[in-house]
């Protein structure tokens, strides 16, 4: 094998996610009554970007072989907080954004600290912190309301040069400014290594605790970016339990569709972003196929089942049955 084959193999998961997304999106726009217009893309982008942020947050934890079942609640909590703080003059708005992001990062760091220093299993630890974050969100917004700096919100959910959805640009910026430096840093590598084999990473003298803590913290930060965008998109804060849970579960689906291994150590946030966009497109397909409303949830479920089963095709290439077991 030469270099590019290794590189291709490294990114196979993400590339598959891109391909799945592109195919679905083409089917969607080809059948959309309005066709491929800037509006249609903007609508899809705004919806997709929210899940993309949450999925990116989930990815950071998943690569450490963890799972964050509180990510949807951090998303809600920061949304509720933003609906109080991200208003007013540019200075106040900026301050609000900083506080919201800091709170998100803090939530992530708390998860990380409990998992790393408390040595609790991530899945239960985050079920519990999820309840706490939801409680806080509910304190902030006992019922939906609040407001946001609408100028900023419109700018970030609108279009640049009338064509490019601003939210996509923001997403790309976050990938470039947060994900790429993280994944290429020593700590990012420690997070990957800890996910792949924690003992080996420890014996190799890697800074696994700091790497994992950073991963959890950045995960909270990115979830908060999602919460911020939710506020921009809806102009309000809403502590909706069901919606927080839905985002958590969707983020897991997106991460898997994006080729990130739930066993840790493998995959990238870029794959997860496309996984999220693909997952969202499943929902969009409802528009273009004239389905009986009662059949829609079943249709969505079946497409999801089919999409994840695609991964099983690789099974037929396995010649050594031991490879089934990791």
């Amino acid at each position: 094998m030469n270099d590019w084959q290794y590189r291709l193999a490294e990114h196979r998961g993400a590339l598959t996610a891109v391909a799945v997304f592109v195919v679905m999106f083409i089917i969607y726009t080809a059948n959309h009554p309005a066709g491929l217009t800037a509006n249609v893309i903007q609508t899809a982008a705004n919806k997709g970007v929210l899940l993309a942020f949450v999925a990116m947050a989930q990815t950071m934890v998943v690569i450490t072989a963890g799972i964050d079942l509180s990510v949807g609640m951090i998303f809600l909590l920061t949304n509720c907080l933003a609906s109080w703080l991200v208003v007013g003059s540019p200075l106040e708005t900026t301050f609000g954004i900083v506080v919201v992001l800091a709170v998100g990062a803090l939530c992530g760091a708390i998860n990380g600290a409990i998992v790393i220093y408390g040595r609790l299993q991530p899945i239960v630890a985050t079920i519990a912190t999820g309840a706490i974050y939801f409680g806080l969100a509910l304190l902030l917004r006992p019922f939906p309301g609040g407001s946001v700096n609408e100028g900023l919100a419109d700018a970030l959910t609108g279009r640049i040069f009338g064509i490019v959805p601003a939210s996509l640009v923001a997403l790309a910026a976050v990938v470039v400014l947060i994900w790429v430096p993280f994944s290429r840093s020593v700590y990012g590598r420690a997070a990957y290594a800890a996910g792949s084999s924690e003992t080996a990473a420890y014996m190799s003298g890697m800074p696994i605790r700091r790497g994992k803590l950073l991963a959890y913290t950045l995960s909270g930060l990115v979830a908060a970016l999602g919460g911020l965008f939710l506020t921009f998109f809806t102009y309000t804060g809403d502590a909706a339990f069901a919606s927080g849970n839905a985002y958590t579960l969707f983020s897991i689906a997106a991460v898997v569709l994006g080729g990130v291994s739930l066993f840790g150590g493998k995959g990238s946030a870029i794959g997860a972003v496309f996984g999220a966009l693909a997952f969202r497109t499943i929902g969009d397909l409802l528009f273009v196929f004239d389905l009986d409303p009662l059949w829609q949830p079943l249709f969505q479920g079946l497409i999801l089942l089919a999409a994840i089963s695609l991964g099983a095709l690789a099974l037929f290439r396995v010649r050594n049955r031991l490879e089934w077991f990791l």
Partner: protein
Amino acid sequence: MENGGPLFRMEGISKRYGGVRALENAGLSVRAGAIHAVLGENGAGKSTLIKIMAGVVAADDGQMTLGGQPVKFASPAAANAAGIACVFQELSLIPELSVADNIVISNPPTRFGMIDRKAQRRLAEEALARAGAADIHPLALVKDLPLSRKQIVEIAKALARKPRILILDEATSALTAADVSKVFAVLKRLRAEGLALVYISHRMNEIAELADDCTVFRNGSKVASYAAGSKSDGEVIEMMIGREYHSVYPAKPSRLAQTAPVLETRNLSWADRLHDISFSLRSGEIVGLGGLDGQGQRDLLLALFGVLRGLRGTILIDGSPISISSPAQARRRGVGMALIPEDRKTEGLMLPMTVRDNLSLASLDRLTRGGIIDSAKEESAVNQMMTLLAIKAGNIDAPVGALSGGNQQKVVIAKWLMRQPRIVLLNDPTRGIDVGTKQEIYLLLRRLADAGAAILFYSTDYAELIGCCDRVLVLYDGAVKRELVGAEITERALIASALNIPSAEPTHQEPAQ
């Protein structure tokens, strides 16, 4: 560099694991420019000692000095920083990362806070070249490499740290002679460059070739330190095991009964790894698989055991063709196959489960009636096996992970013997096992054969093949290149055929078809 005085010294080191005393007032002193061999039975405390040295484990008691200064390592990273690099017995590679990532892992080159991939690649290539493994692609994922290659990468990784003290804990256990000699060349060069090396191995010939100083451990304490060559192998072994020691290998039967083959393969091929393998295996004989590591020996064992898909050719049991598509089928009545797998920690045992649970796992079908375990039957079967193989465990309900490596390996073997298999496949079963235990295993194999079992035995250790086997099939590139019988099995013949070069000694025997 301090001349004469020890570079690193540890004294009065004690370490307990719960009730288990791993080290008691142990010590070691290593000097620059020398290779220090540490010997001892399984569980003697060698690994624990070097783990303390490398900052992986904290000692309960004792002092360490480096270049005369007292030191304490809070973590492997701290030991690294002090110039101590370690190749651990349980590999410390990250499976999902590439070879290059792994090699520079503890101190990657960075630019603007991000890892500089070009520089990393360069460093990795250098380190691989130094370890004599320039053929390993730096972008390959570690998990895709065979164990022997992983060990080399592990060595390259240690080298890339430019250590002052390099520790190798059974670092060559999975390597074949060819690889070992490459590694030895590297180690000798490092010694010449003034490094201090600590070398742990159960292979006496390696120690004879490399060591300048030796220290023997038994039961967690130092028994003796001496200059290499000042004691005979016999003396050393007696120090290690604390009793008298006789020839390692049991006598082979002079003449094998020509019974019908129990297992036969015809033109067995798989993917591009196995090519037209045909051989037969009779009851009562021990047939070795030789050759360089990675020439398809493991694949052959797995193929016979029903693990590989898409197998071509025929497998015959007692003369009739049979299809085996899972270990469950391989072990069933009428076939009676058993496989002692390569890696006991991931393929042979459930470390946290008890000795009892592990031992009965392969025989659950026989120990249950209507799905319910017959406890009395289980307990007697388990105790019988513990006695038969002299497994040292506090209690049959102790977790198997708390046994020493050698005893763990015995558990893996015992678990299959419980089924009284007719065909036993062994995948390098003595790797990292001390001489005493090895000897017990050799005896056991011969006893099994005498009792009518047919044994197919892969080993990376030529001496073992020579000592134990009635016949040896030498594999090269997935095909049987040569069959050596009886007196033909010599180190020279093995190496020559392993390298697929025409043997210096002509044989009358046709190579296996």
